[in-house]
């Protein structure tokens, strides 16, 4: 079966940037920046970008193209090839398929909320909700957490979920060039246009309440950017900044490995890695850092904005923003622009999350794309019902904790050690520069070999120290929810074991075919 390829260099950069630009850019980043020291937060943020983010970006692009050149599209095969003497490394590579599937399962549902809200913005369904309490009730009703005057059950949310799921599957069915690349080539510019329009609107808000002249745009920017120097002494700020860089660039998931495997042997990876990271940072720092918190500050003031930001990541985007739009002229237009922007950010990420599993079925089990996508769709559609039906029991958060956080940091740490220490730094550096359109400064050899692994081991260690005890003992889980959390964990372990067996079978089969051909 002929291996799929990208149509253009810009196409894959857009696809990787689309995978990276997600809800975290517009909701998580501004909240963290405001909570963790304002302008001072940007110091550890940029340090982490240049010491962890960019190196991991280059590592994943290089491993992906290297593995792709040897016929592998997913992490297990790539890792196995890079560390030939190890029989176990492929099982670490399974994380690069397991993590994205788990994220896809709950992310698609969250994405469907944004499609639903885009529709509600136009239909005016939430137009009657003009304060925080009513918009919170609207969101809870929609998510099925309570029955109220807005929603009597999960039917509406479920319909939007099915539509979102089918859109994802349709794009994936169209393939790498005709589906993923095309959507990102049109979707990303549209996202930037919408973000730019919203940014201009936010910057021209002036002083909506003449009685509170201090609530203006300049002070709103000051709310995010004025530095609190004592924050730099707080280790949690450094961890938050490093974590944000990790999550925002989509490194440590396995998606970039698969995307880069569709490159040709002589295609550039150094400039492409830099381009996709830079595009993501543009969306995060320029747009993400200005739209939500500044508009919230201008309408609500510093204290209320802080309260909302601390009450949950989605509350700013799905409760505060619609409320603010109601106070503007043309609320339907602004609401649609905002939720459509988030939906596009979501869909370019979710289609990337599906690709490693589909690539495994296509390339290692020799299935046609149609069959591979059908199998993927049936399995994930079934599993999506867990976070939909048991949202209130914490199933979605549990999947996010293991699939969307723990696996990322662990996988990233394994990758950098494998790349710099097992594959060998000199060989890795040559591979990274093969066909390259830029020369990466030589001091990055030292950074990739020593600083990035050390930085990642510290993040992983601190993260485990901070979270794992509480997570394993379920100290923050309500008594009634413990059974759901345990069931989720057992399900995740079983799923990982099944994937590991499939990978083992596929690689064994491939090895026997290769032996018989010699």
């Amino acid at each position, binding site marked *: 079966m002929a291996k799929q390829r990208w149509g*253009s*260099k*810009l196409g894959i*950069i857009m696809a990787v940037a689309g995978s990276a630009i997600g809800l975290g850019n517009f909701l998580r980043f501004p909240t963290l920046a405001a909570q963790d020291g*304002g*302008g*001072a937060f*940007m110091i550890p943020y*940029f340090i982490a970008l240049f010491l962890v983010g960019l190196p991991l970006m280059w590592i994943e692009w290089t491993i992906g193209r290297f593995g792709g050149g040897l016929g592998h599209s997913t992490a297990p095969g790539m890792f196995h090839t890079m560390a030939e003497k190890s029989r176990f490394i492929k099982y670490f590579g399974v994380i690069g398929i397991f993590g994205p599937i788990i994220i896809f399962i709950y992310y698609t549902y969250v994405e469907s909320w944004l499609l639903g809200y885009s529709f509600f913005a136009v239909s005016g369904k939430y137009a009657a909700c003009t304060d925080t309490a009513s918009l919170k009730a609207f969101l809870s009703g929609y998510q099925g957490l309570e029955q109220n005057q807005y929603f009597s059950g999960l039917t509406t949310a479920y319909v939007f979920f099915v539509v979102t799921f089918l859109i994802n599957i349709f794009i994936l069915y169209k393939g790498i060039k005709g589906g993923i690349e095309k959507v990102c080539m049109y979707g990303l510019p549209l996202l930037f246009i919408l973000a730019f329009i919203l940014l201009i609107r936010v910057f021209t808000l002036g002083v909506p309440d003449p009685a509170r002249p201090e609530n203006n745009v*300049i*002070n709103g*920017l*000051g709310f995010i*950017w*004025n*530095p609190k120097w004592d924050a730099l002494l707080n280790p949690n700020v450094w961890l938050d900044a490093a974590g944000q860089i990790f999550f925002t660039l989509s490194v440590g998931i396995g998606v970039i490995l698969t995307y880069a495997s569709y490159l040709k042997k*002589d295609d*550039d990876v150094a*400039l*492409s890695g*830099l*381009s996709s*990271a*830079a*595009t993501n*940072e*543009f969306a995060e*720092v*320029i747009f993400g*850092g200005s739209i939500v918190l500044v508009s919230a500050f201008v309408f609500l003031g510093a204290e209320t904005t802080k309260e909302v930001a601390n009450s949950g990541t989605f509350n700013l985007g799905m409760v505060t923003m619609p409320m603010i739009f109601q106070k503007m002229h043309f609320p339907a237009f602004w609401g649609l622009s905002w939720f459509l922007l988030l939906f596009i950010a979501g869909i370019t990420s979710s289609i990337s999350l599906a690709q490693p599993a589909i690539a495994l079925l296509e390339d290692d089990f020799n299935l046609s794309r149609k069959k591979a996508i059908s199998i993927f769709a049936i399995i994930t559609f079934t599993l999506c019902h867990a976070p939909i039906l048991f949202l209130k029991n914490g199933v979605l958060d549990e999947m996010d904790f293991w699939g969307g956080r723990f696996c990322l940091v662990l996988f990233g740490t394994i990758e950098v050690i494998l790349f710099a220490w097992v594959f060998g730094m000199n060989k890795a550096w040559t591979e990274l520069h093969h*066909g*390259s*359109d*830029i*020369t*990466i*400064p030589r001091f990055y050899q030292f950074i990739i070999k020593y600083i990035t692994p050390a930085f990642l081991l510290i993040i992983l260690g601190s993260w485990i120290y901070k979270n794992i005890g509480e997570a394993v003992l379920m100290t923050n889980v309500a008594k009634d929810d413990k059974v759901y959390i345990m069931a989720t964990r057992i399900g995740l372990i079983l799923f990982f074991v099944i994937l590991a067996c499939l990978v083992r079978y596929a690689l064994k089969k491939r090895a026997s075919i290769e032996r018989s051909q010699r």
Partner: protein
Amino acid sequence: MTIQGWMFLMASWVIIIYMTVYSIYKTIKSTNTDKGTETSNDGF
């Protein structure tokens, strides 16, 4: 907004805009150039 706040905002925006414009410009330039005839590449 304090002077330091402005300095952080401007410094962050300049770094990000420079990285983005530079890398996209180089990408478009290299896409339009026949790789075989290109003699050198630049640092960033």
